């Protein structure tokens, strides 16, 4: 099992590493002194098991679990007995180890982790790394750990802005950490079209078209030469 260790105490991380080194099937990939760094890592790597400290400054172990859409198995490690009840409210938590952790108790926790099924993926359309998930007419975007629902037909245009995209709807604008490619996959092909490397538009929201631009709401959007033929093909022209 590939695992990571999250604990703000270096002593605790070293102890867990040492305990893991005595179990052949455990492979410690990385360790983190805080949960924020671990979130970034988990967006890019598949992990089977996390050893997670609960009591950390700023961002606790429970805060961390709540940010994970499809959490791996988690063994909580803490010096506090008082969190045990809360801990087992999370399906992904397989055991709860009190520090200082003794080897026999650690081995028991690993056995539990091995015999527990991996928590199932909650939503097949969810992409945990993109910040976006979708239903038929709805698109959920992840902003500051809140999932906000957007009605897809109300989207006018989506603009790429570095590592982010700006989604402009009839009501509001939203900036999301994602890419145009990822959001394109979530949108209906018959309505949305990429007309420039930085823009995807809702073709039903076009007001007019000039040579190399379209007008949607009050925005003038550039059309690249290579994308123009596809745009023209999609229009119902007289």
């Amino acid at each position, binding site marked *: 099992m590939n695992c990571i260790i999250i604990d703000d*105490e*270096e*002593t*605790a991380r*070293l*102890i867990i590493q*040492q*305990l893991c080194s*005595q179990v052949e099937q455990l492979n410690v990939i990385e360790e983190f002194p805080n949960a924020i760094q671990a979130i970034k890592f988990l967006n890019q790597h598949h992990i089977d098991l996390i050893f997670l400290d609960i*009591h950390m*400054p700023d961002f606790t172990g429970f805060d961390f679990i709540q940010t994970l859409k499809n959490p791996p198995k988690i063994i909580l490690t803490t*010096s*506090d007995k008082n969190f045990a009840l809360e801990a087992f409210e999370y399906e992904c938590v397989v055991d709860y180890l009190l*520090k*200082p952790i*003794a*080897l026999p108790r650690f081995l028991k926790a690993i056995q539990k982790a091995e015999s527990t099924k991996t928590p199932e993926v909650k939503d097949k359309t969810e992409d945990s790394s993109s910040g976006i998930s979708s239903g038929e007419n709805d698109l959920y975007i992840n902003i500051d750990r809140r999932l906000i629902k957007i009605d897809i037909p109300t989207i006018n245009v989506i603009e790429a802005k570095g590592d982010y995209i700006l989604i402009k709807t009839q009501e509001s604008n939203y900036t999301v950490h994602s890419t145009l490619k990822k959001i394109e996959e979530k949108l209906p092909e018959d309505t949305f079209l990429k007309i420039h490397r930085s823009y995807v538009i809702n073709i039903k929201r076009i007001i007019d078209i000039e040579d190399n631009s379209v007008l949607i709401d009050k925005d003038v959007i550039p059309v690249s030469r290579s994308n123009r033929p596809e745009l023209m093909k999609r229009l119902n022209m007289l």
Partner: protein
Amino acid sequence: MTEAPNLAYIKELASGSEEFENKIITILKREFYEEKTQFSDNYSLKAFIKASENVHKLKHKIGMLGFDDGYQTTADFENGLKKNNLSLYPKFILILDTIEDFLKTL
């Protein structure tokens, strides 16, 4: 004070690895002094919630060094601090001083 610090837990964990033993003692010493200083500062400033967080971290180290009753005293002091109950302060300081003396011998 009937309990004395020891390295039984660390030696069991090390399973004969001198490298691990040396490494963990070095880190333990550094973190212990840092956390003790932070605790003293917060306690002097009457920042008892922050002080209770320092005590929480020290509690792990107190347990690692073989204190059973001392671990419980520390846990009670940690909870007391959150409610401005300082009655266990003298007992807690005695534990810290005992550990500090012990760490100087390593």
